[in-house]
C-alpha cells in the first residue's frame, strides 16, 4: 500500500497507477449531490466556491450522524456516477482527487487525463470501518444540507484503490477484463 498525504502535488498523483492500493492521510472534503448542485449554481453565477478547489480532494459521501463522543458516524462512499455531470468542470478548475465508488464517464476520465488528476475507489458499504480512519470532521459549507453538507475531514490511513489514474487507465474496465482472462486461462488448462 502506497501512503499519500493530502493535499498532494500533481507529481505524486501522477505516480499512482490504476489498481494500486493507497492509504490516504490529510484533508479531504465531503460533497455529494446537493452540494454539487450548489457548486454549479455558484460557478454559473460567477461566485467563488466555499472551499479551495486547487489541489483538493473531494469524497463523495454523506455520513450518518456522529454518536456522542465520536468524530463521525458511518462514512462510506456514494455512487460517483451521479457526480459525473459536475466533475469535469471541477477537475478543470483544479480539483485533483475524487473519491467514491463505481465507474466514471468518458468525460470524467478525459478530464482526469487532461489535468493529471486521479479517481480513487473506497469500499462501498464499509462505512463503519472507514469512520475509524477519520480523526476530525467539521462543517465547511452548506450546514443546512444536513448529511449532504460539505465537511472538512482529516483522515489517517484511509484505504482506497486507484480506480482511474492520470494516464486514464480505468480499473473498472481493466480489473474485470483481467479477471475474465485469468478465469478463462484457468478453465482452459
Amino acid at each position, binding site marked *: 500500500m502506497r501512503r499519500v498525504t493530502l493535499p498532494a502535488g500533481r507529481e505524486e498523483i501522477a505516480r499512482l497507477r490504476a489498481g494500486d492500493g493507497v492509504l490516504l492521510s490529510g484533508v479531504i472534503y465531503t460533497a455529494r449531490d446537493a452540494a454539487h448542485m450548489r457548486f454549479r449554481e455558484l460557478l454559473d453565477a460567477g461566485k467563488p466556491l466555499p472551499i479551495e478547489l486547487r489541489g483538493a480532494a473531494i469524497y463523495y459521501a454523506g455520513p450518518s450522524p456522529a454518536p456522542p463522543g465520536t468524530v463521525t458516524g*458511518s*462514512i462510506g462512499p456514494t455512487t460517483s456516477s451521479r457526480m459525473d455531470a459536475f466533475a469535469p468542470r471541477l477537475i478543470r478548475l483544479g480539483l485533483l482527487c475524487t473519491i467514491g465508488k*463505481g465507474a466514471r464517464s468518458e468525460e470524467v476520465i478525459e478530464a482526469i487525463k487532461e489535468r493529471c488528476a486521479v479517481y480513487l475507489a473506497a469500499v462501498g458499504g*464499509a462505512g463503519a470501518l472507514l469512520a475509524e480512519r477519520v480523526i476530525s470532521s467539521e462543517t465547511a459549507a452548506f450546514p443546512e444540507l444536513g448529511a449532504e453538507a460539505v465537511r472538512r475531514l482529516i483522515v489517517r490511513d484511509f484505504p482506497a484503490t486507484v480506480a482511474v489514474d492520470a494516464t486514464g487507465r480505468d480499473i473498472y474496465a*481493466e480489473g474485470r477484463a483481467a479477471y475474465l482472462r485469468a*478465469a478463462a486461462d484457468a478453465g482452459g488448462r
Partner: protein
Amino acid sequence: MRVVTPDAVTETVARLFRDANVHLPPDIRAAVDAAAGSEAWPAARRTLETIRENADIAEAGNIPMCQDTGMVCVFLDIGFDARIGGDVYKAVDAGVARGAAEGYLRASIVRDPLRRENTGDNTPAAVYIDLVPGDRVKITVAPKGFGSENASRVKMLRPADGVRGVLDFVVSAVEDAGGGACPPVVAGVGIGGNFDKAALLAKRALLRPVDEPNPDPCYAALERELLERINALGIGPMGLGGRTTALGVSILSAPTHIAGLPAAVNISCHVTRHLSETL
C-alpha cells in the same frame, strides 16, 4: 379480535430499524464468508475481507454498517383476526423517526422528489400491508440503500420472450449496475403479476434468506442458473473484478395476463438488511 397497540408497532419498528442497520443478517454473513474463502482474485478477496471487518466493527461499536441507512420498507402482515388499535401508518413513521434518532441513522428522505427538502427524520417509510390468516401481526423492516435501488428495473416482456428473455433481462440489469450498486449484490426477481406487482415481488424476494431456494424446483433451477451467469460476468466485489458479483438470487412469481410477461429485478447491495418480529 386481538388488538395490537400502535405503541407496540412504533417500539418494534424503531428497534428493528436500528438493529437491521447494525447487524448483518446471518445468511448474508455466511455467504460473504464463503465467498471470501473461495475467491482467488486478490482485489476481490481484499474487498470481501474489508466487508467482513466492517461488519465486525459495526457490531462491536453498535454503529450502522453503511452510512446509507436506507429508505425504510415496512411490511405488515396483519392477521384477519388482529386489529391495530389506531393509525398504523403514523405508528410506523413514529417508529422510523425514533429508530433514526436513537440509532444515529441518517436522514435520507426528501419530502418531495422535485423540491427535495429533507424531512429530517427519515420518514415516511414505504408501507405494505397484507391481510393473512391468524390473529398475529408480523412486522418486517427492510432499510434499503439507494446505490443499488437506482440500478433496479422493471420490464414488460412479451410472452414469446419466455424464460430466456427473463434471464437475459436480469443478467443485463446486474451487468449494467456494475460496481456502483455495491456488489456482491443480492438480486430479487419478480416474474408475472402486472407492472406494479412485479416490482413488489422483486422487493419481497429480497426478504428470503439467500441460502433458501424457491420451493418450486423449476424456479429454484432458474435461481441457480441466474447466479451462475451473474458470477461469470467478472464484475466482482465493488466492481474491481472477480467471481463474486452476487451472493444470491431469489425469485418470486405470480399469475399474469395472457398478453404479458412482466419482470422486475430489485438489486440489493452486500449490506442487504431485513429483520422481522411477530406481535
